[in-house]
């Protein structure tokens, strides 16, 4: 609850700071300080300390799982601010408003992490999406950015419509918006409930860009300003999965036979489409867009499994995926040529940055000793415990394909001649943050309990 309040207040403060504060460096400093306050609030949440007692009528409550996810989201945002905040200056001249919008997105993330009512789920998803539509179109004179914003907006509101219809039908069947387990009276599930649940499933699949509802993702990620793509593809996407998993865990776990098969099919199709299409991309940004679809397939396995391993796994996955993707994007934003060739010979000029990029790429590909490997392992184990053998096997096969396109970037950096890194401008702080992020990736890959123990103690 602290995190939610703090980030909402920070958003308002950032919005008004644009009036009085003119220097960009001050705005940036203020944003980082406010984010540290939000981080402190999140840690207090995890300790069970409530600074303000607000009666939410049982609509909003933070379990350890929600608070821990919020911690991962805030830490990822902090890394994102430290690495990429400077690059937002290039997007347009509303510098403080961009930070304000990001704080509002964090408020939405907190709501999707802590909802106990379908009303809060809906509000959270909207609070999270509407600022993103604006950020996607932040480069006002760039046609690609305009189109990305329009496409994202139309697809986003369309999926909101589906989601709302689902909520209305579930309400019709159960008479409540609370996400409490629904138990069919005489073993028969009302048709209204099944239809509503399907529409919720489709609406949320749109939001997290699971296939076959993923078609907007590459265009939107490609067209938006790269700084904001980085945030869109990491924190926001992970928040979608928390909402997804919590909804199906809290409300629909008793009628699992109705949706298990469908979710399994969506997982398989998402893994297939994401990985196969990513292989054929020439631009690193577009490759990362498809890779985000592929990783979404893995995260969705948590929705299929719905056990304690899946919870651990989803938290770990959110951390591993966000850290790695934010790190790669932070370097990508500063590259002139964003195709694979643009990275030729990168390791010679920037050995340190190249080494951290290798860690991130290995983590995304799921190579042992990185957080990405363990989070994939947790997901596979959770799915096997849930009684599916075909799905994990297929996922492993697809993960093997993903190695190809991640290693292509690695090969360009180390084994091709070129001078791509020569003109790259990086400060000492940027390098230190990137190294810390890479260290965190490796640390979580060796000691995952550093993160997951928070769930239980």
């Amino acid at each position: 609850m602290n995190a939610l309040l703090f980030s909402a207040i920070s958003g308002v403060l950032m919005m008004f700071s644009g009036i009085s504060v003119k220097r960009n460096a001050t705005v940036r400093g203020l944003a980082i300080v406010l984010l540290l306050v939000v981080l402190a609030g999140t840690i207090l949440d995890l300790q069970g300390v409530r600074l303000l007692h607000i009666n939410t009528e049982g609509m909003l409550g933070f379990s350890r799982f929600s608070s821990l996810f919020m911690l991962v989201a805030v830490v990822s945002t902090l890394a994102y601010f430290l690495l990429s905040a400077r690059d937002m200056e290039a997007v347009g001249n509303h510098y403080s408003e961009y930070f304000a919008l990001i704080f509002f997105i964090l408020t939405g993330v907190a709501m999707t992490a802590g909802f106990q009512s379908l009303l809060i789920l809906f509000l959270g998803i909207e609070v999270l999406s509407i600022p993103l539509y604006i950020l996607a179109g932040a480069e006002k004179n760039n046609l690609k950015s305009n189109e990305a914003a329009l496409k994202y907006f139309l697809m986003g509101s369309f999926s909101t419509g589906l989601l709302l219809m689902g909520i209305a039908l579930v309400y019709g069947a159960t008479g409540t918006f609370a996400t409490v387990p629904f138990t069919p009276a005489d073993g028969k599930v009302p048709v209204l409930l099944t239809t509503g649940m399907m529409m919720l499933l489709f609406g949320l699949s749109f939001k997290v860009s699971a296939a076959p509802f993923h078609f907007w993702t590459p265009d939107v990620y490609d067209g938006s300003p790269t700084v904001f793509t980085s945030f869109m593809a990491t924190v926001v996407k992970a928040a979608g999965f928390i909402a997804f998993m919590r909804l199906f865990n809290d409300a629909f776990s008793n009628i699992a036979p109705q949706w298990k098969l469908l979710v399994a099919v969506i997982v398989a199709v998402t893994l297939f489409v994401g990985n196969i299409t990513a292989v054929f991309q020439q631009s690193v940004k577009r490759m990362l867009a498809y890779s985000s679809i592929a990783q979404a397939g893995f995260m969705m396995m948590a929705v299929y499994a719905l056990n304690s391993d899946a919870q651990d796994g989803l938290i770990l996955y959110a951390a591993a995926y966000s850290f790695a993707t934010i790190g790669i994007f932070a370097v990508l934003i500063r590259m002139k040529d964003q195709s694979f060739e643009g990275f030729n010979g990168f390791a010679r000029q920037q050995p340190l940055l190249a080494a951290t990029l290798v860690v991130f790429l290995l983590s995304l590909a799921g190579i042992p000793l990185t957080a990405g490997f363990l989070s994939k392992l947790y997901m596979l184990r959770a799915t096997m415990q849930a009684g599916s053998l075909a799905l994990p096997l297929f996922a492993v096969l697809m993960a093997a394909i993903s190695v190809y396109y991640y290693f292509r970037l690695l090969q360009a950096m180390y084994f091709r001649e070129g001078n791509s890194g020569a003109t790259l401008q990086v400060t000492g702080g940027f390098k230190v943050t990137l190294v810390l992020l890479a260290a965190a990736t490796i640390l979580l890959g060796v000691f995952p309990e550093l993160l997951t123990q928070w769930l239980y103690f």
Partner: protein
Amino acid sequence: MDIRYYIFLSIALFVTGIIGVLTRRNAIVIFMCIELMLNAVNLLLVAFSKMHYKALAATNPTAGTDGQLFVFFIMVVAAAEVSVGLAIIVMLYRNTRSVDINFLNRLKH
């Protein structure tokens, strides 16, 4: 009146909205169709709210009010979405002098 009439009416409105979104090429018309979808949901929520009230009024005098409350939230959020959405469409119009979404295919390459 029987609840089924309301369900059929709002599903008809909703499907009209979906068909509009999928077939029309004008961004503003698509936008109107999305609003139609949301209003279909509003209608359905109010109908369900009355239905639950009728069924449970004897034991719980506030039964079903949350459904009508939800409608207000949908209206507020839809208004916020309209303001952002129209701003995006105006921005696109300034740059291209058109609101045709066939432009969107330029990103696919």
